[in-house]
């Protein structure tokens, strides 16, 4: 069982390191906004579009993103990094699909200015 312990320990460390690497490198496939439905809840998605409105609260930025297929609300938590958003900006969002008060929205984990 000593050999099994060594194998398990090495696998645990290599597997965890590999997953850290993959979590930093892998991105979800770009999809259009109309393809976001309840089946995507709690899954990560990537969308591209223009900002149509921005609401700035104490802890959150709430803004709408529009592409040629539709529009969706995006929320981003402030604090960890500064987010500078303006109406009309072209951006790329990666985030988790959430449901809030019966509406689907994206909780952004990364916002890129294009």
């Amino acid at each position, binding site marked *: 069982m000593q050999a099994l312990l060594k194998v398990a320990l090495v696998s645990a460390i290599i*597997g965890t390191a*590999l997953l850290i690497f*993959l979590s930093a490198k892998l991105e979800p496939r770009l999809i259009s906004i109309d393809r976001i439905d309840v089946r995507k809840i709690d899954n990560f998605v990537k969308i591209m579009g223009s900002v149509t409105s921005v609401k700035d609260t104490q802890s959150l930025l709430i803004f709408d993103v529009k592409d040629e297929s539709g529009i969706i609300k995006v929320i981003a938590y402030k604090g960890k990094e500064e987010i500078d958003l303006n109406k009309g900006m072209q951006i790329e969002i*990666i985030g988790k699909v959430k449901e809030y008060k019966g509406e689907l929205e994206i909780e952004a984990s990364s916002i890129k200015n294009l």
Partner: protein
Amino acid sequence: MLQILIALLLGLVAGCVTGLIPGVHINLIALLLFTSSAFFLQYATPLVLIVFIISMAITHTFLDFIPSIFLGAPDDDTALSVLPGHKLLLKGQGYGAIKLTLIGSFFALFLILVMSPIFIFGLPKAYPFIKQYMAFILIAASGFLILKEKKSRSWALALFLLSGILGVATLNLAVIRQPLFPLLSGLFGVSLLTVSFLRNVKIPAQKITRIKIKPKESVKALGASVIAGPLVSFLPGLGPAQAAVIGSEIAGKLSRKGFLVLLGAINTLVMGLSFVALYVIQKPRTGAAVAVGKLLETFTINHLLLFLAVVLIAGCIAVFLTLGFAKLFALNIPRLNYRYLCLGVIALIVALTIPLSGLLGLLVLFTATSIGLVATLKRVRRMHLMGCLLVPVILWFL
């Protein structure tokens, strides 16, 4: 009314199926149900669907001790890390062990009713304070449990952190679906099953008798569950096993039998109270409560009363269902080839991982199993592996 009764009965059947499948957590089923709710809502109202989910979730909390006690038992070499239920199984008392968890689960149904008004009036005042210090409370709880590991504190800490890093990496993987399934199945399921398989564990013939427990010991265990149950309800990431250890520390040392009563009580109490917590602070703490919260637009006190009635009725019927299935398992498990049974369950979990989480899910399952194996072989209690959820939650609150 008839629709509600049918939903309750169907929930009982579904709870038996999900409870008896090893490695399948009720959170996963609730989430899958919610994501397919558009289909179900063609045939039933949201309220009927919610009754089904609550009935299923409560039944599941009674039944899920059957696979966890009858499967994955290690041999004597790992005796220090053997769970109380497995110890009794290896003595031919698996059925009695299930009965002990049933005592806890059954009385928890009434504790839910007693504790609901306390939750309704106390939680709105306590929650803002708890939320403010959440990260520190969770760090203190994790540190306390690691310090309790007398012989291998450094391994407990290392495994807590390693499973925590794995949790952070897995939950941040943008391309994986249902990351919790392979993560938790690997840490807590496949690793134990692998040890059972490799060590060729023999399960002795099981006696269909009850295990005597002093009423005082049961009362003490139920008292501990009153402290430990709310802990899990407020604190995200803490599991019933950790809450049971903290609860038994506060209530005074419990015997192995008392610990099983406590585990049963916490399992059912946490599920029942999660619906009350959803009503009071709008925070779902179980997958079933998440689904209920999403299906219900406005949550009134009348809804809560209906849900508590469903909890009570489903729980009372689940007692008899659990006894029946426990007897079936106790009589048949020793006749089966335990090695092949464990191998079959591992194959089932692997087979479920591919459609649920994809190929990356297999990598998560393999890594999580490796960490679980290290914990089992180093005789460290596996509850420290809940670091996989606690570390991401702590980082979120910091």
